[in-house]
C-alpha cells in the first residue's frame, strides 16, 4: 500500500444466503482510494456497490452476509495501516463515525424520527470525542452552519419530520463529518432529492472535501452525478468491477461495453434518437462492432432524419383542435379545520392551471417534488377531486360529470404509476391483474377472448404468454412496469398519464421502457401526459413541456425550444441543475 493511499480494497468477495441458496453479491472487487480524493462507484441495482460500501463499514447483516475473501486496508490516523476485516467489533465501533463515516440514500428514513436533529449529531461527538454537552451543542451549531442549513439554531431543535429532504441530508452530512473522518462513504446521497437540491448537495460535498481533506467514496447509479464529483470511478456489473479509471477516460474512452451502454442509454440533453440504445445492444454485439462503438456520422444522420420526422409530426398534431382542454383547474387539500370541521386553511396543490392537450402528442410535465404535478395528473382523472375548474374532453366537462358517467369514460384515461412494486396486487396472477379492468369495463364478451387478448398484450410489451400465470414478485422492476403498461393499454385508452413511470427503474431498464412507450404510442395512437422530475427523460419523450412550480404552471413550450431558450428563471435553474460533467 502506497503512502498516499487511504483505503485499499483487495479481492473482496461477499456472499448472501437467501431462500434460493448462496448469492455472490460481490466477487473479487479491488479498489484503491487516495487521501483527499473522490472515488465514484457506478452501477445499477444489484451490482454490489452498496454491499461493497457496507463491507467497508462492517455493517453487513451478520446473519445473512458472509465475507468470503479479501482485505480492506485502511490508513488509520493513529494506528497506521489496518485491515478492517480482521479487527474486532469494539475496535470497529471506534472507527465507525469517527474515522470512517457514511451517509445514506434515504434522507427521509435515515434519521431517527423520535430524536431531535441536534441531539442526533451531538451523539457522535459525545460518544467518540467525549465532548461535554455544551461543547457538543456549540460544535453542532458550527457544523449546521458549515453544511449551510437555513436557521441552524432552529434545526438543532427540529424533529426530522419538520425538515425537507435536502435539509435532512444536510443534517446527515453534518453528522458524518462531525468527528472529522478521513473517509466519507456516500451511498446514493442525492438520488431521492430534486435536481436543484442535488446540485447544491454535490457542491457542498465538494467544498467539504477540500476543507477537511477527506477521501470520499461516492456511490451512484448515475454516471452524470459521479462525473461531477469524482476524480476516478469504477463501474460495477453483477458484483464485479468492469472498469476502473479516471473520470475523463470513462466518459471519453470507455473500454468496457457496459460502461459505454450506461453512457448511451441515458437520454442526453443534446440530440434525440428515435430509439434509445439498451444495454443488450452493447453487451451482445461488442465484437461485431469492433472495440470502439461506431461514432459520428451514421448516428448524427439518424438523429437528423428523426428530427425531420418529428417536425412533420408536430405540424400534423398541432393543426388539429385540442382534444382535452383544461381551464382554471384548482385542487386544494385542507390543512386546518375549525372545531366544527369547516376548512380554514388549504394547501394549494394545483392552483389555477389551464392548458390543452392535442391528440397524438406527448405532453411533458416537469417540476420539483411538491410542485403539484402528480396531483394535477390525478385531478385530470378525478382520482383526486378538483375544487374548481373545467376539464373539457370532446365537449363534456369531466369535472362536473356524475360518478356513473365518469366511470363509462374511465377506460379512455389510464395511468401508470411510479412504483411498479406496489401498484400490482401481490396475490393476483399478473394475467388476471391485466384482465380485471377489462372485465369491469366489459371489454370483449367473455373471459376466453379476454385471456387471448391479454396474451397478445403481454407479447406487445415484450413479455411472454406463460407470464400470464406468474405472480408479481417473480418479476423485476422493469418487467412489472411493463405489466402495468399492458394493464393500461388493455382498455384501449386514448390518454395515458405516466406519473414518474420510469423514475424507479435503472438506467438501462428505463431505456427499454421508454422505447416501449414510444412504440406503443405509435401502434395504438395514444396521447401521453408524461410526468417526471427528470428533465432529460422528459425532454427525450415530450413534444411539448409544461413546467410547474408551487401548483402553478409557469412555462410551456415545444421541448427543444424550451430547453434552448427557457423564458422563466426557474426553468433555467432546473436545466442548469441537470448533472452534466461537461464531457457530453
Amino acid at each position: 500500500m502506497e503512502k498516499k493511499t487511504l483505503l485499499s480494497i483487495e479481492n473482496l468477495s461477499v456472499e448472501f444466503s437467501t431462500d434460493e441458496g448462496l448469492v455472490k453479491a460481490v466477487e473479487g472487487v479491488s479498489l484503491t482510494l487516495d487521501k483527499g480524493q473522490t472515488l465514484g462507484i457506478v452501477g445499477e441495482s444489484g451490482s454490489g456497490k452498496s454491499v461493497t460500501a457496507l463491507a467497508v463499514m462492517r455493517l453487513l447483516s451478520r446473519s445473512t452476509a458472509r465475507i468470503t475473501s479479501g482485505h480492506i486496508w485502511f490508513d488509520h490516523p493513529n494506528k497506521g495501516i489496518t485491515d478492517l476485516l480482521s479487527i474486532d467489533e469494539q475496535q470497529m465501533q471506534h472507527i465507525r463515525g469517527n474515522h470512517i463515516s457514511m451517509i445514506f440514500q434515504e434522507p427521509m428514513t435515515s434519521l431517527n424520527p423520535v430524536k431531535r436533529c441536534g441531539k442526533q449529531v451531538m451523539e457522535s461527538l459525545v460518544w467518540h470525542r467525549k465532548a461535554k454537552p455544551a461543547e457538543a451543542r456549540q460544535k453542532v451549531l458550527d457544523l449546521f452552519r458549515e453544511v449551510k442549513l437555513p436557521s441552524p439554531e432552529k434545526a438543532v431543535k427540529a424533529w426530522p419530520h419538520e425538515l425537507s429532504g435536502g435539509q435532512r441530508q444536510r443534517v446527515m452530512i453534518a453528522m458524518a463529518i462531525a468527528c472529522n473522518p478521513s473517509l466519507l462513504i456516500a451511498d446514493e446521497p442525492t438520488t431521492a432529492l430534486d435536481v436543484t437540491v442535488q446540485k447544491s448537495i454535490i457542491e457542498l460535498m465538494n467544498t467539504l472535501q477540500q476543507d477537511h481533506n477527506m477521501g470520499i467514496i461516492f456511490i451512484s447509479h448515475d454516471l452524470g452525478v459521479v462525473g461531477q464529483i469524482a476524480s476516478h470511478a469504477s463501474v460495477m456489473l453483477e458484483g464485479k468491477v468492469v472498469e476502473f479509471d479516471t473520470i475523463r477516460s470513462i466518459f471519453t474512452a470507455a473500454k468496457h461495453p457496459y460502461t459505454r451502454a450506461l453512457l448511451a442509454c441515458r437520454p442526453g440533453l443534446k440530440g434525440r434518437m428515435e430509439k434509445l440504445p439498451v444495454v443488450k445492444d452493447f453487451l451482445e454485439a461488442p465484437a461485431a462492432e469492433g472495440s470502439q462503438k461506431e461514432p459520428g456520422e451514421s448516428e448524427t444522420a439518424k438523429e437528423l432524419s428523426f428530427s425531420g420526422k418529428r417536425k412533420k409530426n408536430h405540424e400534423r398534431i398541432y393543426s388539429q383542435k385540442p382534444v382535452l382542454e383544461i381551464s382554471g383547474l384548482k385542487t386544494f387539500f385542507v390543512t386546518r379545520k375549525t372545531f366544527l370541521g369547516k376548512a380554514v386553511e388549504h394547501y394549494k396543490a394545483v392552483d389555477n392551471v389551464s392548458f390543452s392537450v392535442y391528440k397524438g402528442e406527448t405532453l411533458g410535465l416537469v417540476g420539483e417534488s411538491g410542485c403539484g404535478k402528480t396531483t394535477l395528473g390525478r385531478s385530470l382523472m378525478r382520482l383526486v377531486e378538483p375544487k374548481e375548474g373545467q376539464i373539457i374532453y370532446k365537449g363534456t366537462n369531466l369535472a362536473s360529470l356524475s360518478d356513473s358517467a365518469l366511470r363509462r369514460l374511465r377506460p379512455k384515461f389510464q395511468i401508470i404509476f411510479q412504483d411498479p412494486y406496489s401498484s400490482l396486487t401481490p396475490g393476483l396472477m399478473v394475467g388476471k391483474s391485466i384482465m380485471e379492468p377489462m372485465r369491469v369495463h366489459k371489454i370483449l364478451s367473455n373471459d376466453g377472448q379476454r385471456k387471448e387478448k391479454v396474451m397478445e398484450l403481454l407479447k406487445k410489451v415484450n413479455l411472454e404468454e406463460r407470464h400470464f400465470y406468474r405472480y408479481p414478485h417473480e418479476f423485476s422492476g422493469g418487467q412489472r412496469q411493463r405489466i402495468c403498461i399492458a394493464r393500461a393499454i388493455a382498455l384501449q385508452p386514448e390518454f395515458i398519464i405516466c406519473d414518474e413511470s420510469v423514475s424507479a427503474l435503472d438506467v438501462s431498464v428505463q431505456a427499454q421502457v421508454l422505447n416501449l412507450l414510444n412504440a406503443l404510442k405509435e401502434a395504438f395512437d395514444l396521447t401521453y401526459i408524461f410526468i417526471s422530475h427528470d428533465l432529460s427523460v422528459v425532454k427525450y419523450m415530450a413534444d411539448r413541456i409544461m413546467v410547474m412550480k408551487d401548483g402553478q404552471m409557469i412555462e410551456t413550450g415545444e421541448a427543444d425550444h424550451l430547453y434552448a431558450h427557457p423564458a422563466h428563471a426557474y426553468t433555467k435553474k432546473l436545466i442548469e441543475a441537470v448533472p452534466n460533467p461537461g464531457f457530453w
Partner: protein
Amino acid sequence: MIKFIAKRLWYGLWVFLGVVTVVFFLFNVLPGDPARMMLGQRADITSVEAIQRELGLDRPVHIQYLNYLNDLSVVSLHNNKKEESLFFLDREKYSATVLFSVKGRSLVMKKPYLRRSYQSNRPVTEILATAFPNTLLLASVSILFAMIIGIVLGVFSALKGNSLFSKGALVFSVFGMSLPSFFAAIIIAWLFAYVLGDFTGLNMTGSLFEVDDFGRGEYLSWKNLILPAITLGIRPLAIVTELTRSSLRNVMAQDYIRTARAKGLSMYRVITRHAMKNALNPVITAISGWFASLMAGAVFVEYVFDWKGIGVVIVEALEYYDFPVIMGAVLLISVILVLLNIAVDIIYGYLDPRVRLQ
C-alpha cells in the same frame, strides 16, 4: 398540552353522556320490576307502589332520565321544599354543599349519587368504593408484571434471532395467548397453593383484606395478590413479549438504526437510545387495552381466587337485575376508559413527536 388534555376531557364528557344515555334506556326496556326485587315475590301491592313512587318509577321516562342525570352531575339543581318531588334535596341521599338557593330551589355541589342497590340497599358508591381499589390494585400489579417481564423477554428474543431462547419465548407466548384464564387460574391455584403450598406459603383463595379469626379484625394480606396477579398477567405478558419482539425486529431493520450503527454506537446504546422508543408504540397500545379490560374486572380470576373485585360485583348484580349497581359500574368503567385513553395519547406524543398535536 393543557389545551389538548382539556379538549380530550371535553370529548370524553360527551362520550360519557352517550354511555349514560344508552345505559339508562337499555335498562329501562329490560323486563323486571325493581320494587318486586327489593321486596320479594310475596310483597303486598301497597308497599310495591310505595317503593315505585320513591324510585320515581311511576313518572314518565324522560323525567326519570333527567333525574338520573341530575343525580350523577357534580353540580345539580334541587328542590328543597316538596318532599314528594324526585328532585327533593334529601340529605340522606346527597352529601351536598348548597351553592345558592332561590325560591325553594337550590344549586348544589355534591358527590355523584349513584342510587342504592336493590338487593342490599347499600349505596352503590359505597359498594364500588370497596370493590374497585381491589380491582385497580390487581390490574395494575398484573399489568406491571406483564409489561416489565414481557418487554425484557421480547427484547432478548428479538436480538437473539433464531436461538433456542427466542424459540422458547415464541412457544411460551403462543401458549400463554391461547390459555383461558379460568383454566390457568385453577391450575395455578392448585399447583402453587396446594401442591407446593407448604413450600410457597400461599393460600388457594383470599382477598387483599382478610379477617383474622383471633379478633385482630381486618388486616392486609399482600401475599394473596401474587397468584391472581400472575394468572391475570400471563396473557398480556405473552402478547407484550410477542409484540415487543416483532416490533423491535422491525425497527432494527430500519434505515435510522443503520445510521446509528454507522455512527459507531455500541449495540446496547443503539437499542436503548434509538430502537426502543420507536418500537414501543404497538406495545403501549396493547398494554393500555389490556389494562382497560382488566380494570373492568377479571371475573373468572376474581371468582377462583375469591378476590373481592369489581368483576364479582358486576356478575352478582347482573344475576339479580340490580340495575343501580350495574349502571354505576358501567359508568365507572367508562370514566376510566376515557381517562386511560387520554393518558395513552399523551404517552404516544412523548414517544413519537410526529403524532404530537399542534
